[in-house]
């Protein structure tokens, strides 16, 4: 069974985003970019399934600019077998991403499609669910644990009340939550080897997908800031403050 994983190049999670003064978006010039952390978890899960012999080949796909090749090389260094960059400099919304990935899946016929549950830039949390809808296949979102059992995958999901388990017919779409696994760091020899692994370049047009955005961003602004607070000297003072708030 093949596994297809989706990876996105985003602002590194350690970088504090800065809104551009003209309100057109977040400043991405000269800042560190990395693989979306949830996608690292997706790659790791696929690699572990291959190590267990459940998955035979892993293909990573990224939709984004030329630089997203670096993100795909990281995935290859973690253990992905080959990569596809669907290159575009435009902003591609989750719906169009899902359509492109469906195009890749139609050609590759993977048994498992693994995406991050959300990208930490637009925080949409949509792509996996949309992909599942377009393919008319089941979805195991916010996965905490997954086990392939014959023609099915059993997914433990992180939900608001705790955990839920569902059983999905393969092929299935999985979206990863934080505790599915802890992604590995690529070793130097694997980074070297990754340079020789195949990376194919395509365009959205190859899949007949129109990436024209459906949502117009009118402006991007700073969130309201909180006024600076006070420090109390000791617990007695804190108790007094809590009493003043009416909570004690």
């Amino acid at each position, binding site marked *: 069974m093949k596994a297809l994983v989706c990876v996105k190049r985003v602002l590194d999670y350690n970088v504090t985003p800065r809104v551009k003064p003209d309100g057109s978006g977040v400043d991405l010039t000269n800042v560190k970019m990395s693989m979306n952390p949830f996608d690292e978890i997706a790659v790791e899960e696929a690699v572990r399934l291959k190590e267990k012999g459940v998955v035979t080949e892993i293909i990573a796909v990224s939709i984004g600019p030329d630089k997203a090749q670096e993100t795909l090389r990281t995935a290859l260094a973690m253990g992905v077998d080959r990569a596809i960059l669907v290159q575009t400099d435009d902003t591609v919304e989750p719906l169009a991403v899902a359509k492109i990935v469906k195009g890749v899946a139609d050609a590759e016929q993977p048994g498992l499609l693994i995406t991050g549950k959300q990208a930490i830039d637009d*925080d949409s949390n949509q792509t996996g669910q949309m992909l*599942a809808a377009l393919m008319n296949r089941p979805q195991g979102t916010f996965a905490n644990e997954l086990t392939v059992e014959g023609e099915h995958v059993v997914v433990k999901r992180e939900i608001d009340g705790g*955990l839920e388990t569902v059983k999905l017919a393969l092929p299935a779409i999985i979206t990863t939550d934080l505790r599915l696994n802890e992604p590995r760091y690529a070793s130097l020899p694997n980074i070297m080897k990754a340079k020789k692994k195949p990376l194919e370049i395509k365009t959205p047009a190859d899949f007949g997908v129109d990436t024209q955005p459906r949502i117009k961003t009118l402006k991007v602004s700073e969130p309201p800031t909180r006024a600076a607070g*006070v420090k109390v000297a000791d617990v007695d003072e*804190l108790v007094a403050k809590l009493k003043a708030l009416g909570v004690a």
Partner: protein
Amino acid sequence: MMKTLIWVEHDNTSVKDATLSVITAAAKLGEVTALVAGSDCAAIAEETAKIAGVSKVLKADDAAYANALAENIAPLIADLMGSYDAFLAPATTTGKNISPRVAALLDVMQISDILSVEGPKTFTRPVYAGNAIATVESTDAKLVITVRGTAFDKAEATGGSASVEDVSGPGDAGLASFVGAEIATLERPELTSAKIIVSGGRALRDAETFESVITPLADKLGAGIGASRAAVDAGYVPNDYQVGQTGKIVAPEVYIAIGISGAIQHLAGMKDSKTIIAINKDEEAPIFQVADIGLVSDLFTAVPELCEKL
């Protein structure tokens, strides 16, 4: 006027609070029809009919809808959407699971996690863990939206008298089945509706220490208990305690962060709280930049002392 369809989140016992915020958001767009899907969900439909602002309730009662499996629910909603202009669901794990599937079936780009309604097709929403707020306008023929519960007042649970109409959908898609759930029984307020939240971080060391330090304070204050990702990852508390960008978004009257550094991903989930209190031994901890009241102290002495003096 726009016709909106909203998803009623329930556990077959009661309507979840998040639904009430969705109704407020939907009412800003137009008339509100509420969809109650489930198995033996007549009582929930009756409860929904009483919510102020709901003009009609659609009840889809079918074993296939019992556990809100997106594979079964999304086609039901997509079919119903022939008669509506907008679909709104809460940005809960259930809403986030179902709603994008509906959007894709309708060939619509979803607008996730809205904070405000600025016009019939214009909304604000947080991006980059709430470090930026985008004002966005949909160009799609229909709207599919998830609503951030803390950003909208709750509709009154009583005062309405909507009619209840039965609807049916395609039923079981045969793709997925529900196996089981591990739902913690709540002896304390649910995080997303708690007035006071006491949250613990990595500093709490282990599950026993977390329990022995945080729980007595929460009990004293009648508070809900939250945690940082680090505390959840380390197994001090279950996953549903996580507050943050990728966990729960909360905005209680009082949020007390104990031994939490204040990473942007954590702040994203609690910085709209009315009063933030932080206890941390590092006076440089970023949490103090958002805290209204800060105490620089070792939590292992400060928290027990606080409990005693309350």
